[in-house]
């Protein structure tokens, strides 16, 4: 099976600035790759290039079989990018934002309902204008839109930022479900403690290049493990083995 992402000496420009300076990277179906690196290392640019938002000017770059050197826009509808800024319209409610994202792909509006529930965006939150939501809630709405669109490649730029503990755990579960469904995930992070355990592989970037690669620490998602009864907590005390 062809890799989901296949870069060889890929150079991408942001304006006149070389945001990627010869990246070699391969991501397979069902794989979670975490990208680490200092600020300005090129992590965000790598994700934006994979999303078809930055043109590749030299080298080889294929995402989901689309050659980014000839047409970097064709891949966009097949990827899901969760960037620093949530792609939300402040005057639309959480549900309307998700519905717009879903209908833009030609999917039925109902596809967003399950995602909204999955992300806990129910009740009053569902109909609250996005402009009145907290940063973490906006991130959850953006995640709901991403989940509803079911992209083949998830591009998550520091996805843990602004999320509370339960949302971070939910994010891990969503990533697990996505790769189980056959998607690939490329995740940039400044929080290796949170992101590396989710990954199959870790790559380190510096100066617009991949400078190091090492195995990740992915384990089965907690929800997939059998619960263990702890006698002294009574019948309600179901615990998971991590």
């Amino acid at each position, binding site marked *: 099976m062809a890799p989901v992402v296949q870069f060889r000496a890929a150079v991408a420009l942001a304006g006149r600035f070389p945001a990627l300076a010869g990246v070699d990277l391969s991501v397979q179906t069902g794989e979670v790759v975490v990208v680490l690196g200092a600020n300005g290392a090129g992590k965000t640019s790598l994700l934006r290039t994979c999303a078809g*938002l930055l043109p590749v000017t030299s080298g080889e770059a294929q995402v989901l079989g689309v050659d980014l050197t000839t047409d970097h826009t064709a891949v*966009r509808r097949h990827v899901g990018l969760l960037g620093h*800024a*949530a*792609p939300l*319209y402040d005057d*639309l409610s959480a549900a*309307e934002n998700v519905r717009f994202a879903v209908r833009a792909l030609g999917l039925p509006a109902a596809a967003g309902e399950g995602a909204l529930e999955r992300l806990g965006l129910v009740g009053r939150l569902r109909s609250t*204008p996005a402009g009145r939501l907290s940063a973490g809630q906006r991130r959850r709405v*953006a995640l709901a839109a991403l989940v509803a669109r079911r992209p083949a490649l998830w591009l998550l730029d520091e996805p843990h930022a602004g999320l509370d503990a339960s949302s971070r755990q939910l994010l891990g579960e969503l990533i697990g479900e996505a790769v189980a469904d056959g998607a690939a995930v490329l995740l940039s992070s400044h929080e290796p403690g949170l992101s590396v355990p989710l990954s199959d592989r870790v790559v380190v970037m510096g100066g617009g290049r991949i400078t190091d690669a090492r195995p990740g620490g992915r384990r089965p998602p907690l929800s997939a493990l059998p619960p263990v009864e702890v006698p002294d907590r009574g019948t309600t005390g179901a615990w998971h083995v991590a």
Partner: protein
Amino acid sequence: MWRDAALVAGKDLRIELRSRIGLWQVVPFAVLVLVLVAFAIGPDTASLRNAAPGIFWIAVLFSTVLSVQRSVAIESGEGTRDGLRLSGIDPAGIFLGKAAAVGLQLLVLQIVLWVGVTFLFNVRVHVVWLAIATSLLATVGLASAGVLYGALSAGLRVRDTLLPILVLPVLAPVLLAGSKAWQSALDGNASSGAEWLRILIPFAVIYLVVGIVLYGPLQEAA
């Protein structure tokens, strides 16, 4: 493309209905233009009647700039701009949808201004079909050209001040043809007015086609 256009137009109109910027800012601004120019001209009824079509279209033109700036602002956030590019919506559909939303707002505005002109300047339209045809054609041209130039200025820090400078000279033919056609509609001279539609039709068609073709590349460049 048409499905995408309907989706984008619906989204933009819903946002406008919620924000009420059109209702509380654009419409009052346009009415203010009518009133201020009427004050400047003075109480002479004949002068006001002669100036009415020009004032009407100047108010529409200035309001077009405001509406287009608002349309651009909806997508000006980093997240929403990227989100729209990644949405899978055909750029031509985005252009048509945004132009349709701006056009619909301009049509509503023109109805308000029509009432305003009737009372303030004491004029009456004698050839109604001509006035309506002029408004429809001019609106297509104004909305298409406005959204196109809005896309051109979208990524610039100075877009709010640059847009009027870019777009107002381009819209001058609409001001001229719209004013003349409306004057004919007020005078009851249909044949003379219809001549001016020959300027409005190609203007609308050209900017509609150019917008459909160029909106995608302009969106990328922004």
